[in-house]
């Protein structure tokens, strides 16, 4: 904690609380940092070229040691449990963000469509799970005759209580469908217009979730849906704090941790297959030059919709598990900032790189979740980091080999960009 306090004090500077004094101090710091970089590097790095190769190795280091990493993933929570449940609860939240980052990476990294409303998919998945695994739908029937939901459904409470084996894929599918619905009207848009429209869709989703308690109470408005069922397999409830394995108590977060770990492995497997398939190469072509891709005979419309749908699917699944583990979902949890946080993760890791998305989510996630008392300061740091990264290191820390090549080519000769037909076969 003292390190954090020292950091806060350092940024605040020695000149008191006047905003201008703080600004002056921080400008001084920035200037000094600039000068040091200049002295060391000779000139200010615009888009770093030399370290790129090293970084490419970084990604392959991750890939080569994937089994060791998997082992760490398997045993990490057990070590964390020695210190209690807090670190595990944080790790679990980060896992969900890993899923989100891998999903957003498909849209932003592979296909080059900047989606600033990714939280919408997360929300759709969470609400699908919340509605079909809680008393909420039964509550609706008490007020209206629009729906006929009988009390005779399995479970201790009335309402739908569908198994997670059905619901989690269903939530993913609903979010994927939502992705296609968002995708259709935005197909013609490119770049920044697309970004702002997706941002709009993200906000619209939240506003609807907040207001669909009238005239029929579907989402329960700002209160959100509570009493959401935990994931249950057979008679084993993930949410039951009294589960035991021999003498060891199994906390709910541990159950969810392994469930999400399994999903992450599945997702990474599927997505890396996708990346190397014809579809993945076509996505890359769209990212590099949509017009050229179209001329080359790629059905850009369907492929862009597919990117939205697959990104949405993984976001929706993450949302469903979030709802199950959280016991309550409310519109406030689906703010624009979630989209931005996931974007920071993807950019930091390296757009288009799966190891990058995973590692980016882990690093940024830990920084974010372990500092709740720095509510605004951490956002300030992330905002600054985003600018710095995109200027000094646009390929991220663990770029994919392919993306790295593209950036190098661009650096050397802009005319090559249009001529690059995509990855080498």
């Amino acid at each position, binding site marked *: 904690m003292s390190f954090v306090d020292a950091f806060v004090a350092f940024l*605040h500077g020695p000149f008191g*609380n006047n*905003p201008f004094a*703080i*600004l002056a101090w921080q400008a001084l710091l920035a200037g000094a940092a600039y000068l040091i970089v200049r002295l060391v590097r000779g000139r200010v790095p*615009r*888009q770093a070229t030399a370290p790129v190769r090293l970084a490419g190795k970084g990604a392959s280091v991750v890939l080569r040691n994937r089994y060791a990493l998997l082992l760490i993933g398997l045993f990490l929570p057990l070590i964390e449990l020695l210190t209690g449940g807090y670190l595990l609860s944080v790790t679990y939240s980060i896992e969900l963000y890993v899923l989100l980052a891998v999903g957003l990476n498909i849209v*932003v990294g592979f296909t*080059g469509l*900047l989606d*600033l409303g990714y939280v919408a998919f997360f929300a759709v998945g969470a609400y699908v799970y919340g509605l079909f695994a809680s008393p909420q739908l039964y509550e609706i029937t008490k007020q209206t005759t629009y729906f006929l939901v009988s009390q005779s459904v399995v479970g201790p409470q009335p309402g739908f209580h569908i198994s997670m084996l059905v619901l989690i894929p269903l939530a993913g599918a609903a979010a994927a469908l939502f992705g296609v619905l968002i995708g259709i*009207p*935005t197909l*013609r*848009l*490119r*770049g*920044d*217009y697309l*970004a*702002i*429209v997706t*941002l*709009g*869709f993200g*906000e*619209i989703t939240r*506003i*609807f979730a*907040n*207001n669909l308690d*009238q*005239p029929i109470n579907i989402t329960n408005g700002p209160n959100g849906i509570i009493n959401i069922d935990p994931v249950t397999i057979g008679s084993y409830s993930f949410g039951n704090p009294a589960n035991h394995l021999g003498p060891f108590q199994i906390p709910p977060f541990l159950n969810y941790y392994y469930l999400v770990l399994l999903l992450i492995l599945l997702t990474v497997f599927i997505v890396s297959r996708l990346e190397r398939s014809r579809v993945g190469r076509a996505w890359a072509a769209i990212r590099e030059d949509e017009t050229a891709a179209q001329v080359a005979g790629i059905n850009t419309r369907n492929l862009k919709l597919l990117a939205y749908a697959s990104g949405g699917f993984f976001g929706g699944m993450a949302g469903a598990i979030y709802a199950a583990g959280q016991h309550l979902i409310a519109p406030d949890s689906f703010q624009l900032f979630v989209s*931005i946080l996931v*974007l920071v993760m993807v*950019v930091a890791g390296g*757009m288009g790189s799966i190891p990058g998305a995973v590692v980016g989510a882990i690093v940024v996630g830990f920084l974010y979740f372990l500092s709740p008392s720095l*509510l*605004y*300061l951490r*956002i*300030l740091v*992330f*905002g*600054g*980091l*985003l*600018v710095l990264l*995109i*200027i000094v290191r*646009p390929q991220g820390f663990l770029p994919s080999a392919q993306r790295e090549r593209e*950036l190098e080519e*661009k650096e050397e000769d*802009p005319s090559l960009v249009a001529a690059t037909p995509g990855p080498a076969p």
Partner: protein
Amino acid sequence: MQRCLDLLTSGLTPEGILQQLINGVTLGSVYALIALGYSMVYGVLELINFAHGDVFMIGTFVVLGVTGQFGLTGTSSLALVIPVLLLAMIAAMALCAVLGFTIEKVAYRPLRRAPRLAPLISAIGVSFFLEAWIATYVSSRDHTLPNLLAGDIPLYADVTIRYVQVLMLVSSVVMMVGLQQLVRRTSLGRGMRAVAQDREAAELMGVNMDRVISFTFIIGSALAGVAAVLWMLNYSTNQTIGFIAGLKAFTAAVIGGIGNIPGAMLGGFLLGLAESLGAAYISNASCGIFSSAYEDVFAFAFLILMLVFRPSGIMRERVSQRA
């Protein structure tokens, strides 16, 4: 069904509609001023300057700071209020201009040849940085000014228009006309138009592109400073208003035809009216299904519809290949 028809007509009174029009135009005039900044930058750089709304937000805090220094209250005499407000405006314009200039230099200029998404992501970073900076080092709470320049002109029945609202309307139109003249008549304006049309050709023809772009940011940001004064005369501020006002203003710029100066103004007024009338009558029009809580959806829905069906905006200036 009868209930719906009754509902549809129940809230419609001439006083109500007139008042809603005034509300909408008031809001729209601020949107319009911020939209000018978006429109100019987009016209020249083809970049959505996400941080523009936050520059405006910082302007509102400058206004708060200046008026706070002079201890203005609702009962202060005009002889004090007007000079202080002018001073606040100059300070806000100057600080916003410096800020806009710095943002361009630090966060956008190094990315001029980078892939398309890079400057946009950088802009988002700047926006969140500025918001968090204000929340950390200035205030994360809401603030208002006392009721300055009170007084109104009666219009019809009990509907009045306040002096502040007249001031807002007039100053936004004046700014728009001034800007239009600047772009049309000065050499700087010529430079802007040249860069907007073809960046490389303009550079080859001897236009100092860096200078033109810097000036675009300075002028756009200074206008946000003016908007900040007008905003504070009527509304409240906190560190998040910039992002929302910015999104609305961007929408206004798109509606009017991005890159088009009178268009940005027109878009601002249209959006302000759509929000006011929408929030007021949506419940009646939809038979109670939607309520006034959907106010923010109108702007986004308007934006999406516009981009999908008429991406070049109402006042089509030039065909943008991006949308």
